[in-house]
């Protein structure tokens, strides 16, 4: 029998894998992919609650999350291209001009 908790735990697992990806990987492109994974996990949550509460609003917000994800991917990848042109690297450890 499937309950709401099944979907919420699946979403939590995928979200945690995304967090681990952002923390572990040093390749900026893969870090961005992990961000997309976290947004996807949130979308599962929204769809599960939309089905559980029998309300369309959750599905509407998935579309907005997808729009933000697309915008973020476009701008982020443009930044990486610009960065690679100046620094010849997209490794997060080598981008240390500000001593962060």
């Amino acid at each position, binding site marked *: 029998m499937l309950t709401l908790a099944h979907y919420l735990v699946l979403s939590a697992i995928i979200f945690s894998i995304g967090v681990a990806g952002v923390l572990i990987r040093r390749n900026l492109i893969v870090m961005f*992919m992990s961000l997309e994974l976290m947004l996807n996990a949130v979308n599962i949550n929204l769809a599960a609650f939309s089905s559980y509460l029998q309300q369309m609003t959750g599905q509407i917000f998935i579309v907005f999350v997808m729009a933000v994800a697309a915008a973020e991917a476009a701008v982020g990848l443009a930044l990486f291209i610009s960065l690679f042109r100046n620094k010849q690297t997209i490794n997060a450890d080598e981008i240390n001009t500000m001593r962060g």
Partner: protein
Amino acid sequence: MNEIFMNVGFWVLGITAVVASLFMVTRENPVHSALWMLLTFFAVAGIFIQLDAEYIAAIQVMVYAGAILVLYMFVVMLLNPKSTGFIKVPAKVILGSVVALVLFLQIVMTLMGTGVIKSAQMSGMNLPEGLSNVKAFGAVMFTQYIVPFEVASILLLVAMIGAIVIAKKD
């Protein structure tokens, strides 16, 4: 019978999504990561179909798998970054995994703490008579949420112009 199909579908899609996302995070080659991410997106689209969100499943495949993933592949192939320094610090890997695991346990503990969720049965979407998922979706989107919809279009326009300006050669 339908119940069994739902259960089998959930476990197959869920395990596929989790395994593919694990591979995505741990592959050294960014192209392989992108392809594993594609598999994750398809599995999540299947989960959306289970949750009576057919339109969302379709745009998941079109926007994520079609547009965003192609953008990623394009940038990976354009930059062709050398994968030096891949997970060379084990301490960082252990720390990152532990933080993610603690976060996951906290989410699960919060879920178990809420009484509503334990017994919550998924009953499926109850659409009005004669309305498909897309019709019901559009009816809400273009009446109640018309202003956020327009704001989202402005956001996409700004992102498009911004991406062109940032990536352009001076």
